[in-house]
């Protein structure tokens, strides 16, 4: 029987994954943030790359991030199947086999690191390899299921892309690259904990020790305020370096005032008040945190774009 005729009369065929199912393994929404921050890191660097090299650098940084996402989906398939938000992912929904996710993750890790090294430099490739290792092994395999500080330390994986973009252009790490890293690193905990407050996922059943579960929601609210306050000097400090300028400083002051005010409002509330308005404040602060990070990096980019006209920078 030919292949074309094989399905005749067969109604219950096994699922054949399409190209989109494999793309979903790479967490495209996370990749979009990686592309943006890495692009800013690369464009604000004082050394400019050839456009083809720059394009390749961003592509392979994004591919490396996608590879770590695929490895995360392979490892976390058991807990993804328990939580509602992640049940539809390719592995727990059965569209892609766990082994395929592992193979895609390992294969893309190798390709992205080698190609970034060839396109730019070995330090950038080394940092990308470390980022993949950090997200897949340190965060996914170790911290995520063992400590309520998982988000704090695991946030480093998401903070590396602008630093890698900078290193791809300059070949070295500087205070500007470190502060861009620190900005995302310190931003991640309040951003994620604000989400955890209103996304009542069954972390306990999944065996994930989220701060909201292990220490309670009041402690989580306090943590959000403390980390938001710690974020302020990092954001202001970044605005005072060579990638900043008057515009970035003004944006940083306004955004941090808004973020601290939001965190303060979250801290003042308890579960009864939050439940009454369906976590309206927590949802507002979470949305604002997304805008916060986007506008900070957009300000760095605007500063670099204005420099040739004698307007940007200090």
């Amino acid at each position, binding site marked *: 029987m030919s292949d074309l005729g094989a*399905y005749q009369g067969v109604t219950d065929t096994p699922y054949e994954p*399409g*190209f*989109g199912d*494999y793309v979903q393994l790479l967490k495209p929404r996370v990749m979009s943030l990686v592309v943006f921050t890495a692009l800013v890191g690369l464009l604000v660097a004082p050394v400019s790359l*050839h456009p083809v*090299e720059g394009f390749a650098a961003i*592509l392979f940084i994004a591919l490396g991030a996608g590879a770590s996402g695929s490895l995360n989906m392979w490892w976390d398939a058991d807990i993804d199947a328990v939580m509602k938000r992640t049940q539809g992912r390719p592995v727990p929904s059965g569209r892609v086999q766990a082994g395929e996710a592992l193979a895609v993750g390992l294969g893309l890790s190798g390709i992205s690191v080698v190609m970034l090294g*060839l*396109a730019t430099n070995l330090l950038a490739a080394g940092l990308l390899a470390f980022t993949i290792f950090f997200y897949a092994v340190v965060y996914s395999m170790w911290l995520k299921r063992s400590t309520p500080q998982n988000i704090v330390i695991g946030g480093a994986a998401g903070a590396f892309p602008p630093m890698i973009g900078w290193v791809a252009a300059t070949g070295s790490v500087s205070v500007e690259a470190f502060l861009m890293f620190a900005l995302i690193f310190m931003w991640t905990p309040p951003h994620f904990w604000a989400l955890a407050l209103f996304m009542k996922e069954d972390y306990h059943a999944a065996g994930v020790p989220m701060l909201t579960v292990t220490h309670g929601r009041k402690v989580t609210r306090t943590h959000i305020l403390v980390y938001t306050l710690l974020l302020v000097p990092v954001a202001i400090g970044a605005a005072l370096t060579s990638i900043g300028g008057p515009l970035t400083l003004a944006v940083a002051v306004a955004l941090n005032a808004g973020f601290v005010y939001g965190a303060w409002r979250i801290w003042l509330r308890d579960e009864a008040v939050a439940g009454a308005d369906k976590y309206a404040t927590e949802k507002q602060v979470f949305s604002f945190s997304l805008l916060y990070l986007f506008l900070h990096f957009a300000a760095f980019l605007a500063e670099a774009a204005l420099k040739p006209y004698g307007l940007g920078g200090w």
Partner: protein
Amino acid sequence: MTFRPAHELHKRRFSRNLGLGLVLGAFVVLVFALTVVKVTRGDPMKAFDHKLDPQAEPVKVQP
């Protein structure tokens, strides 16, 4: 002779093959472009035209 419409399974398999093919093609183009940029450092390439080129002569250092 008539062809039966493709099964959903075949459509997904075709999308996967097409996607992979396009990705591999784009990868080849990118590696070629990177090679050209790396070899020429962004400058236009210059072929040997069998004529004397003073710029290609080594600099004569006076003793």
